[in-house]
């Protein structure tokens, strides 16, 4: 919409510059200076939003959490001062913390290994000339865009202990029912299935992208040399997409260590993760202590920070392990 004031003013402005050449030179010089400033500063400006957001939502919480972790601070009672490493030492002697850590690692291993392996095989299959290829490629991402809450409800029915779909199916084939929430292995498996169901497609698409970047002539010459498809897969494809595999391993590590929603929904929203905490992950335990039982902000922060360090260490370890084992496969 034209601004009436502006339009009224604009004619004299438009005619003014030719009457004052001096000023125009000055503007030009200024523009030049601005141009210099522009080339130097604008790149920073363009990337600034990331750093501002990271600082606000990444760095600040991290530092603030570290600060809180050294204090006796409850949500209802407020900040009661500095306590040094008390929260951390309490954590080290807390059985529930170690139990949650154990569960987190357990579910991570049960979930991630088959997840990445299946994603790899699925990607290899999708990389071939298939009918309805695009439909399949789009299809495998569908679970990933499904809301976790919906997944939780559906899987809750499937894995219901007494009147669930799976219990019924087991009964039909004459097997004993499994009490999904009452044993560690069963609960871990069920949660892993929920996690894998959502993430296999996502990882396969990443692998597929990497596989398509591999030049076709490599496979042609391999075929001429008489290498079987499975040999080509393990000896060519896998080593060539190694960086991608490392990437997915690290992403899965970070996701797996922070696992929260799936076990929570699997336990019908109970933060304890089973009567005997069979499937309570570390993220759930942090939430329980901070927001559900003790309102202990300081203790929760100490655990959060520990989790952060664990993730870094574990991701690093994974990176090294995956890289080494993939190197080994090329030899």
């Amino acid at each position: 919409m034209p601004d009436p004031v502006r339009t009224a003013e604009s004619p004299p402005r438009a005619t003014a510059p030719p009457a004052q050449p001096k000023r125009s030179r000055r503007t030009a010089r200024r523009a030049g200076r601005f141009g210099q400033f522009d080339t130097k500063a604008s790149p920073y400006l363009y990337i600034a939003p990331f750093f501002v957001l990271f600082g606000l939502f990444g760095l600040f919480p991290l530092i603030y959490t570290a600060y809180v972790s050294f204090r006796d601070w409850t949500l209802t009672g407020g900040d009661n001062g500095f306590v040094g490493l008390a929260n951390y030492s309490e954590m080290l002697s807390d059985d529930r913390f170690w139990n949650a850590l154990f569960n987190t690692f357990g579910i991570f291993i049960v979930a991630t290994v088959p997840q990445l392996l299946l994603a790899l095989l699925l990607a290899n299959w999708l990389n071939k000339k298939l009918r309805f290829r695009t439909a399949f490629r789009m299809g495998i991402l569908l679970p990933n865009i499904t809301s976790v809450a919906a997944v939780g409800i559906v899987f809750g029915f499937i894995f219901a202990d007494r009147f669930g779909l799976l219990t019924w199916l087991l009964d039909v084939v004459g097997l004993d029912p499994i009490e999904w929430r009452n044993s560690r292995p069963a609960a871990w498996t069920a949660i892993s299935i929920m996690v894998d169901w959502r993430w296999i497609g996502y990882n396969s698409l990443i692998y597929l992208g990497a596989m398509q970047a591999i030049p076709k002539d490599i496979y042609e010459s391999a075929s001429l040399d008489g290498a079987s498809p499975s040999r080509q897969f393990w000896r060519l494809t896998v080593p060539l997409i190694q960086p991608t595999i490392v990437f997915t391993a690290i992403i899965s590590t970070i996701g797996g260590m922070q696992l929260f929603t799936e076990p929570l929904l699997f336990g019908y929203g109970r933060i304890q993760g089973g009567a005997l905490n069979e499937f309570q992950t570390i993220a759930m335990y942090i939430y329980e202590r901070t927001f559900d039982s003790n309102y202990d902000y300081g203790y929760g922060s100490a655990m959060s920070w520990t989790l952060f360090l664990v993730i870094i260490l574990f991701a690093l370890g994974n990176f090294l392990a995956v890289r080494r084992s993939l190197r080994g496969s090329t030899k």
Partner: protein
Amino acid sequence: MSVTRRGVRGIAVVALATSMALGTAACSKDSGGGDSADGKVTVVLQYFGSPGFDQAVADFQAKNPGIKVDAQNMGQLKDFQPKLVQWLATGKGAGDVVMLEEGPLQGYLQDHKNFANLLDLGAAELESSFLPYKWANGFTADKKKLVGLGTDIGGLAMCYRSDLFAKAGLPTNRDEVSKLWPTWEAYAAKGAEFKAKNTGAAWIDSATSIMQPYIMQNSDTWFYDTSNKFIGDTNPVVRKAWEYGLKLGTDGLTSKLTRWQPDWDASFKKSAFATLPCPAWMTGVIAERAGDEAKGKWDVAAIPGGSGNWGGSYLAIPEQSTKKKQAFELLKYLTGKEGSLANFKEKGNMPSNVPALDDPQFKDSTNVYFSNAPTGTIFGTSVKQLKPIYLGPKHQQLWENIFEPQMQAAEQGRSPADAAWQKAVEEGRKLAEG
């Protein structure tokens, strides 16, 4: 306890998702001022479960044209509780009127700076209209600050399936059924008799179901003594109730269900058990889960061991509210006679408001779903002489997060009873003192 009782609306998950969505809505609304364009003042009411406020809120708005009520259902207590604590801690986001359950109430009373003193808003004159213990429980320890006014209470009864009773050759008439079990021992003995008849149903849903009524009948404290010291390990009644419940389990009288979970919900439709300890609000829970096909099969009798109270909530006004005056009007109406009666009619929640309890609408009420049982008389009997029970600051967490799961594990045979007790006591002390 009533946490979940209020989670009548299906799976926790749905509630979680809804309350998250509502939570965000509440936040944004709060920062936006809240007065609507038509000159009305908007009062935000946050509640959990199904207190039956719909009709009462509509009536209130009709009577107070200047106030608009934004009633927000926050899902189950366990979904709402963590959010409320965060909002109170950050000073933003809580509604103008919030519902507090009696379990976590003491925790709020300890750190009461986040709540307005209802006495300052003119609540003093309401004392005579509340049951004395319900009135007293809303106060802080020094009795100077009134944080909450009572909504409902849970007078006790025993709900039972008359069709299953007939199948097992037991009497089905509610007066005769009441005479079957003057004590919990008699109740267990009848259970054994019932079991011998192989009806395919268990006697009771779970061992943990008897904990609340049993303890509330027999003790005036539970996990805490009145000076807030943890006595969960030494209170003999807690141990007795625990052992009695587990004995029902080992005798094969329980269905070993975990309450408030989908399997438990489904078991109402599958006729998996014959009796269920039944505070007033439980009638709504049963009717919703068992559905129309079980209408008239359920009935209500007296509970073994005499009267007691199980559950019930309060309404409070957070200090952060900027519309305390209007909020108090709403609070007064919802806990008053007309509001309470509307809640009772909608969801069967029993008033703590004395004029409402005395009103024929409550006293002479019958419940169609429960074979026209005179619920007004059954639940109202002796409720005015109730002994209050002191619950303590972290009662709700102690019961729900520690004792109940451990007891379930013992009942389901996943953990030896003694080990489960030791663990519960040990973790309970840590939580209570931590």
